[in-house]
């Protein structure tokens, strides 16, 4: 039986595309003041991968490049729109040293510098008082 590497290439591109996007979006959005710069960067890099996927005749390379391109396009949307919304809602920690985040912290009461994900599951819902205490402890 012949081994087909298209699936493995797709698996690697999907996993590392999501992983890289997940980590880098959080890091970049946290540090950068002008989000249009990394947004355009992600779009250009995605465009480069898409072009590469068009030009290669190797199906595994084409698939991996296509998946990386699409995940980079999605990352651009995450950087520009979705992650800032999470900061506003307090679902991701704001960086008080970033002037853009400092403005969000001043304007939106739900925004916080605390990463509320940094807990082990406890098997029940937190009370509003417990959540408030978590935010105050770190403040």
């Amino acid at each position: 039986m012949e081994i087909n590497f298209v699936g493995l290439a797709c698996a690697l591109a999907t996993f590392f595309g999501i992983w890289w996007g997940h980590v880098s979006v959080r890091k970049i959005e946290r540090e950068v003041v002008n989000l249009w710069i990394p947004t355009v960067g992600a779009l250009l890099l995605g465009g480069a991968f898409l072009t590469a996927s068009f030009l290669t005749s190797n199906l595994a390379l084409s698939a991996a490049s296509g998946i990386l391109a699409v995940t980079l396009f999605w990352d651009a949307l995450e950087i520009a729109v979705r992650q800032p919304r999470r900061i506003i809602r307090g679902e991701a920690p704001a960086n008080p040293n970033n002037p853009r985040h400092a403005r969000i912290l001043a304007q939106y009461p739900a925004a916080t510098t605390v990463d509320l994900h940094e807990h082990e599951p406890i098997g029940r819902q937190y009370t509003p008082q417990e959540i408030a205490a978590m935010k105050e402890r770190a403040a």
Partner: protein
Amino acid sequence: MNTFGLWMGLAALFIIGMGFVWVIRGERYLGFLWWPYIIALGAACIVGALFVANDWASGLLGAAGASLIWGATELKEQAVRGELGWYPFNGKKIPPPFVDVIRKWKAPSL
């Protein structure tokens, strides 16, 4: 021009999007402790993809396997999101087989 990558990329985006759905629903009804089984299923999909002759089927199976593995690493954070009230919380989850053993293992989170 080879459009295989573009279509595979769009299919992977759909698979990843469905990953968000099953992580939310799966954690709500089953709980995050199912993560070893999900990782095993994802790995089986990827290994299986190596032996599928059809390129489309192999690619989709590989992407689905990777999405399952990624989703398994998201289950713990999703459990915390439910406990924080960001998503509906269900206190009566279905425990996985060997739950006491799995509880001693550190759940992956990337």
